[in-house]
C-alpha cells in the first residue's frame, strides 16, 4: 500500500488494551504496524464482547476492533533471544509503542535511551494510566477511576444517585488517540532534525481536558459544576439549570434552546411546526426569535416553564426519526440519542459509505465495520486488513523480512521466544 500516507513508516506495537488505538490510528493512515504479542496471545484478546458470545482469543470483538490494519507476530521480549530479535526490529522501525507499567521497560533494558542507541531516530511512545513519573505513577487506573480523577464523572449522572461514567470504557481510547497525535508531532520534528524522542502519555492527563471547561469554572468563578441528569448546570446565567435531553415517543432527543445563528432559525421553525399541530402557546408564537435571548428578560418565569412543557408535549408525540427528519428539513438543531442499532441505519452514515464489510474466514463470515473518520484527497484511509490471528505473520516478518531461517524459527519456538 505504497500510496498510503504513512506507508514508509514502521510501528512496533507492544501495547495491551490500554494502547491498542494508537497503533490502530497509525495503521489507518497507512503505517506498517506490527503488533507484537507475547507467545500465546495478547491479554487484550480476553476483553469482550465476543463474536457469537464465544469467549475465545480469536473472537474478541475488542481485539478485532482495535487491531485491524496491523500485522501480528508473537515474541517474548523478556527472554534473551526474544529481546535480541526485538532490537533487530527496532533498527528498521520508526515508532515503538508500549503500555507496560512504568519501570517495566527499564527492567528489560529497553527504555528510550537503550532504543535510541540502536536507532537514534526512534520515537518511543509510552501509554500508562498516570504517566511515567509523579506520586501516583504506580497506581492502578481502571476506566472508572480515571473518569473520576479527570473530574468528568462528578458532573455526570442524576442528582439523587452516585455520579456515573459511560457504560463503555473510554479512558484508554482517549489515551491511545492522544498517543497517536503526539507521536506524529514527534515524527515531524524527526523528519526535520533526525532526532527521535520519548512520548510519555498519561490517560488521566489526556482525559482531564475532555470535559473541556470544567476546570475553568473553578479557575474563573470558584464554582464546582454538579451533575444534573438530563440538564446542564451553568453559572452566571438566568436559568442556571438548562434542560437539554427530552423524551420523545420512542427514545430521546437533544435540543438546546439557544439564540443567534445557531438557535434563531430553528426556534422559529420549531414553533411553526408545533403551531401546525396546535401545540404552540400564544406567547411562544409572538416571540421575535431573531432577537430572542434565552437568558434575557423576554419571558416571565411562568412563560419559560410553559414553553418547556409545550415543547415536551410536542416531542412526546413524535418518534426520534420523525423529529430528526423534520429537523434536517426545517433546520432545527435537534438530534436523536442513537443506539448502536439506530446508527447502522443512519442515512448520513450510509450516504457517506461509512460501513464496510470485511471477510473473517476463521469466523466463517463477514463483519460490518465503521470506517476511519478521516478522508484524505490524495490517499486512501480505510480498513485494509482485519486484525491478525495469533502469530499470523511470524514467518512473513521473521523469515521474509528479518532473514531468519525456518530452522531458526523452530529453535526460537522451542525456547518459547516466539
Amino acid at each position, binding site marked *: 500500500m505504497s500510496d498510503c500516507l504513512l506507508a514508509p513508516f514502521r510501528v512496533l506495537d507492544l501495547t495491551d488494551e490500554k494502547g491498542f488505538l494508537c497503533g490502530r490510528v497509525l495503521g489507518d493512515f497507512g503505517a506498517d504496524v506490527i503488533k507484537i504479542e507475547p507467545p500465546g496471545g495478547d491479554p487484550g484478546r480476553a476483553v469482550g464482547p465476543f463474536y457469537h*458470545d464465544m469467549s475465545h482469543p480469536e473472537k474478541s470483538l475488542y481485539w478485532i476492533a482495535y487491531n485491524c490494519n496491523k500485522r501480528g507476530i508473537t515474541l517474548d521480549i523478556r527472554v534473551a533471544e526474544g529481546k535480541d530479535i526485538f532490537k533487530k526490529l527496532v533498527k528498521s522501525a520508526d515508532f515503538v509503542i508500549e503500555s507496560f507499567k512504568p519501570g517495566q521497560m527499564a527492567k528489560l533494558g529497553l527504555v528510550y535511551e537503550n532504543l535510541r542507541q540502536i536507532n537514534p531516530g526512534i520515537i518511543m511512545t509510552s501509554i500508562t494510566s*498516570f504517566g511515567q513519573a509523579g506520586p501516583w505513577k504506580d497506581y492502578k487506573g481502571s476506566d*472508572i477511576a480515571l473518569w*473520576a480523577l479527570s473530574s468528568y464523572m462528578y458532573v455526570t449522572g442524576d442528582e439523587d444517585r*452516585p455520579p456515573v461514567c459511560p457504560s463503555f470504557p*473510554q479512558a484508554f481510547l482517549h489515551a491511545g488517540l492522544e498517543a497517536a497525535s503526539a507521536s506524529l508531532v*514527534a515524527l515531524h520534528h524527526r523528519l526535520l532534525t533526525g532526532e527521535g524522542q520519548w512520548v*510519555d502519555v498519561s490517560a488521566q492527563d489526556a482525559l482531564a481536558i475532555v470535559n473541556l471547561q470544567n476546570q475553568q469554572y473553578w479557575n474563573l468563578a470558584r464554582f464546582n459544576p454538579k451533575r444534573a441528569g438530563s440538564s446542564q448546570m451553568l453559572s452566571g446565567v438566568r436559568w442556571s439549570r438548562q434542560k437539554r435531553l427530552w423524551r420523545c415517543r420512542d427514545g430521546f432527543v437533544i435540543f438546546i434552546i439557544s439564540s443567534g445563528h445557531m438557535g434563531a432559525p430553528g426556534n422559529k421553525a420549531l414553533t411553526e411546526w408545533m403551531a401546525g399541530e396546535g401545540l404552540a402557546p400564544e406567547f411562544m408564537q409572538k416571540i421575535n426569535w431573531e432577537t430572542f435571548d434565552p437568558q434575557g428578560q423576554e419571558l416571565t418565569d411562568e412563560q419559560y416553564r410553559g414553553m418547556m412543557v409545550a415543547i415536551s408535549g410536542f416531542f412526546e408525540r413524535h418518534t426520534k426519526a420523525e423529529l430528526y427528519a423534520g429537523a434536517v428539513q426545517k433546520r432545527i438543531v435537534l438530534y436523536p440519542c442513537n443506539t*448502536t442499532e439506530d446508527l447502522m441505519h443512519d442515512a448520513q452514515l450510509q450516504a457517506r459509505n461509512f460501513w464496510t464489510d470485511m471477510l473473517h474466514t476463521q469466523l466463517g463470515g463477514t463483519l*460490518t465495520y465503521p470506517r476511519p473518520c478521516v478522508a484524505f484527497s490524495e490517499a486512501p484511509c480505510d480498513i485494509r486488513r482485519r486484525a491478525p490471528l495469533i502469530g499470523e505473520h511470524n514467518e512473513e516478518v521473521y523469515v521474509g523480512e528479518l532473514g531468519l531461517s525456518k530452522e531458526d524459527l523452530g529453535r526460537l519456538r522451542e525456547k518459547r521466544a516466539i
Partner: protein
Amino acid sequence: MRKALEDIKIADFTWYVAGPFCTRYLADYGAQIIKVESSKVLDGVRPYPPYKDDIPGVNRGGYFHNYNSNKLGVTLNLRHPKGLEIARKIIMWSDVVAESFSPGIMNSLGLGYDDIKQMKPEIIMISLSSKGQTGPQARLPAVGLHLAALSGFINLTGWPERDPSLLYGAYTDSIAGRYGVAAVMVALAQRQRTGKGQYIDLSQSEAGLQFLIPPLLDYAANGRVLNRDGNRHPAAAPHGAYRCQGEDCWCAIAVFTEEEWMALRRVMGHPSWAGYPRFATLAGRKRNEDELNRLVEQWTANHTAEEVMRLLQEAGVSAGVLEKAEDLHRDPQLAARHHFWTVKHEEIGDSTYDGMGSILSQTPAELNKAAPVLGQDNLQVYTQILGLSEAEFIDLIQQGVFE
C-alpha cells in the same frame, strides 16, 4: 530548544471547539496560528460561560480561552471584498488552512480547497465538520452535545431504568480535535516527502464512533444493542462510585480480580459480610451487586474519598476520588506533569489553562500566550506579518474590513 512545529503556519478559520482544540494542540508544540474571527458573528463559544467572576463578556469566557491560547487573534470581515483579499494573504502565508464552518460556507466565500489550491498548490486544508462534507444531513449545524447523542454516547450514559444522563460539555470535540491533529501531521509528513498538499474531510460524529467500535461490532455480529448500565461493568464487582465522608464526596472503586477482592476485604478490616459465600466469586458478587454496593458503602462512608483511594491503591486496588473542578487544581499527579499553565490574559489577568496530555522528551509543549481578546493581534498580524503599511491598515479599518 527547537519547538517541534515551529516551522508550521496555520490559517485558522475554525470556531466552537473541535477545530480550535486541534489548532491549539498544534500551537502548544510551536505552530504559529492566526485565528481569524469576526466581531459581527462571534465564535459561538466566546459568549459562553464560565465567565471571570461570573460577569458575562466576549473576552471573559473560560470555554473560549481554553482552546484558543497560544494563537494570534484577528478580526476580519469575510463579507467585505477586501476582507477576502486579506484572508487570501493569510492563506498564502500559511502551510495549513483549518476551518469548521458548515459544509459549503468556505466554497461560497471563494475560499474552498479548489480555490486556494489554485493559489498555493502545496496547501493542506482540513475541514472539521459535524457530520462530514457530504451526505443528506451534512448541513444541519450541531454542537458537541448533539454529536455525543447522535454518535451513541448519551444513550450509553446513566441508569438503565431511567432517562440517560448528559455528558458534560462537548464530548466528541476532543476526539475529533485529536484526530484532526493526527491527520494534519500525516498530511505534513506526506508533503515533506512529495511536495504535495491535500484536503482532509474529518467528520466529528464519525470520529466519536471510533470510540464505540466494539459495541458496533457487537450489534453487527451478535445483534446485541448495548444499553447504559449505571456504573456496572460485566467483568468487575464491586465497581462503582461509593459515598464517602463530606458533602457529596465519592470514590470510584473497581475490583476485577480475586486478588483485588481479597485486598479490598483486607483494607476494609475483614468485615464478616465479606466472607459470605454469595460474595465468594465474581459471579456471586455480580448476582448480589446491589447488596454488595450497600455494604462496601458502609465502609467508605466512614472515610474521606482521599483515604479510600490511598488505602486501596496502596493495596493494589484501582480507586479514584471523584474530583470536583476545584480538586483538579490541587491534584498532585496532574501537578507533577505540569498539566496546568497560568498565563496573563489581556482583560481578565492571570488565568489557568489545561495542557493536552503528553510529555515529549525533546520538544515539550509550552503555553505562553493567553487566548486573544477580540482583535487583539490585528496590528501585529496585518502590518508585521502581512506587511500592510500603517496607512493601508488605517484605511482598511475605516472601510470596516477588520470588523
